[in-house]
């Protein structure tokens, strides 16, 4: 019995952290962001060396054959570093879709190229969670028409995995006819999302998709966003404690004031159990499928609430400095904001959790 990370998982996390500490300090994140990109080429290349594109791709298809818990560990490290690197959708959700619902031929066709970094996916499943502004994609005669909002990891994507209104997944080439990608700008400069407009765009449906794959993809995405938020919250707490330990006011470091200490204690007390929750959610995704969707909801909604509290409180501990751009604390604040809102905010996800337990029917 061992609830926690294996040595390999710890090493994986440390590798990612060490690499990002070297290649992607805050100054670099700023540089990338100010250039208008959400992708650090150097970080992405170095992480590819670690095998991230093929992290969850089976070994038979040239990947590392790891599970969602491994991916979760990586997501936490990325969140901690506010790394501008496409990961959740491109390196995890897309291959998981193929594993869950691709035919053998499709898996053989796509997975090795994903693992090799030869194809780069964006993923659009948002309409399964929340349809706004007329979004939604219909499939007719092997072609897709409509709009997918909040397509994840869309920057540099050459292919997209898109859910239609029935929840079936399709692969679309970024070069396909009738496809238009409009970048959406969010508070979080370190992740890319887009609006995909499709007009009778040719698409390849995943062959074995009974409709459950999209739900599974969303669960995976939620766990990864939760893990990202956890890591970003870790970093904000650490920065708040460090700042409080050196900033002096009234002749003492502010970290010796009870009010400041208690703010930090409350952040840690709320955030620490999220770690176990996220780990278990990922473990359930890998090994306890009956629980996976529900625990994913719990992880997403709870880290969403805790993340908002930590983001705000850590900023307050920093006083005026936290509000400026000078320390860059807001990169974490906004990353947490992204993680909270995307693939369902807390209320939406809690309602789904109630539906999953048969406590209420779908719909308002």
């Amino acid at each position, binding site marked *: 019995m061992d609830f926690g990370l294996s040595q390999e998982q710890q090493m994986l996390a440390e590798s990612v952290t060490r690499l990002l500490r070297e290649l992607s300090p805050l100054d670099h994140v700023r540089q990338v962001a100010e250039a208008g990109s959400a992708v650090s080429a150097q970080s992405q290349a170095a992480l590819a060396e670690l095998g991230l594109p093929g992290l969850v791709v089976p070994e038979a298809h040239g990947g590392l054959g790891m599970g969602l818990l491994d991916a979760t560990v990586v997501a936490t490290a990325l969140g901690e570093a506010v790394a501008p690197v496409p990961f959740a959708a491109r390196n995890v959700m897309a291959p998981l879709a193929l594993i869950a619902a691709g035919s053998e031929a499709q898996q053989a066709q796509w997975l090795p190229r994903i693992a090799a970094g030869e194809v780069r996916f964006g993923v659009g499943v*948002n309409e399964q969670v*929340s*349809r*706004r*502004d007329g979004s939604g994609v219909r499939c007719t005669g092997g072609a897709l028409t409509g709009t997918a*909002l*909040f397509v994840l990891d869309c920057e540099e994507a050459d292919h997209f995995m898109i859910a239609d209104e029935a929840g079936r997944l399709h692969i679309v080439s970024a070069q396909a006819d009738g496809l238009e990608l*409009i970048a*959406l*700008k*969010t*508070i*979080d400069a370190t992740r890319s999302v887009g*609006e995909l407009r499709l007009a009778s765009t040719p698409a390849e449906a995943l062959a074995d998709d009974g409709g459950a794959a999209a739900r599974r993809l969303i669960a995976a995405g939620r766990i990864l966003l939760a893990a990202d938020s956890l890591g970003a919250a870790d970093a904000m707490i650490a920065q708040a404690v460090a700042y409080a330990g050196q900033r002096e*006011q*009234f*002749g*003492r470091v502010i970290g010796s*004031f009870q*009010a*400041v200490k208690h703010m930090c204690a409350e952040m840690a007390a709320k955030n620490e159990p999220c770690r176990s929750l996220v780990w278990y959610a990922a473990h359930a995704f890998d090994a306890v499928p009956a629980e996976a969707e529900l625990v994913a909801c719990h992880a997403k909604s709870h880290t969403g609430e805790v993340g*908002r509290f930590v983001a*705000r409180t850590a*900023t*307050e501990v920093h*006083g*005026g*400095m*936290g*509000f*400026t*751009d*000078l320390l860059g*604390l*807001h990169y974490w*604040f*906004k990353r947490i*904001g*992204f993680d909270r*809102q*995307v*693939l*369902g*905010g*807390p*209320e*939406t996800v*809690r*309602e789904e959790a109630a539906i999953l337990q048969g406590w209420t029917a779908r719909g*308002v």
Partner: protein
Amino acid sequence: MDLSYGPEYETFREEVRDFIAVNRHLAPKNAGRAARPSNEGVAWQKLLIEHGYTARTIPREYGGFGAEPDILKSRIIAEEFARAGVPGGLANQGISMLVPTLLELGTEEQKRRWIEPTLAGDVVWCQGYSEPGSGSDLASLKTSARVEGGDFVVNGQKIWTSTAKEADMIFCLVRTEGDAAKHQGISYLIFPMTTPGIEVRPLRTMTGHAEFNETFFTDVRVPVDQIVGQRGQGWFVANATLGHERGMLGDPDALENRLLALIELMKVEQVGGARVIDLPALRDRLVALQAEVAAMKYNGMRILSNQIKGEPGGMAKLIVKLQACELAHQISALAIDALGELGILYNGSAHERANGSWQWNYMFQLGLIIGGGTAQIQKNIISERGLNMPREPRLDLPKGPSAQGGQ
């Protein structure tokens, strides 16, 4: 409980309305929050002063209207201009902070020289109080001014100088007596922003915009008579105006307007074909905020009423900044949640709502929670002044005789 204003005031209200109806075509368009008024803006301001609709109680000899203070008339003026959607009098730090300070503690010459053009919008000021190293502990400020050949020579750095780029003048706290106790060594200087040695750099905040500046002083020479009050008394000079600033935050009308915008948002926005207001968990949060905004609105009416009667604001007033800033932040937070994933769109993105202003407000209001006395400082004030609880034992001895501000 009598919420009518009475016939005298209703007559006054009619006068204001008539004025607005007749003159509104003269009001500046897009006045917004520009630091320096346009020519139209200055003309409008002068017209308002002439009719007593701004600078109402400031003596005529200093460029005001010279009326007796009448809180209800002031309130009526504010209500009617807001209702008509016409800009009222200028509200900047020169008018809200420097003018009251000069009126109370300035020399006759200072009053005659500065108040009228400040009121008219011809002279724009910025405030030089906070420093990067002195936030809550404002009195620990380090910008120094030594005396040399009839001048103060100022060196150091200020932060949060919001209108520094547009300002003609600065009112500034500097340390003139380096060896005095913390609160005793400060002086209050006023000098032109064109004085050699001043550099203004925009200060970007988490919102992505530069709503503030940092201002650097290198051997800035200020004639020794450009001081308000006595040398070493600047802390007490400034405290008169700090009170005025605190009063500016937490306007209940502003809260109500934000709430109305949120309600409208939740009625209009749709998700999955349903209105957001039909999502019960979000609606429940909305009604809870509505109740709290109502409480703050009536709390504001109570404060106003106390002012009219010349009674102290008491606890009702002490809690305004803490509660109103928090509530404004919560309203923005709910708006973001009501927008779901669209709530994080920003910077002019497609599908963005209200120019991203919900997000801007969410972040900026966090700045307001922190600024002008963090929430922690506010709680100290409420417990010490409102509840008479003991002060935190202080370690930065020796104690000043009147250590204002708490931790």
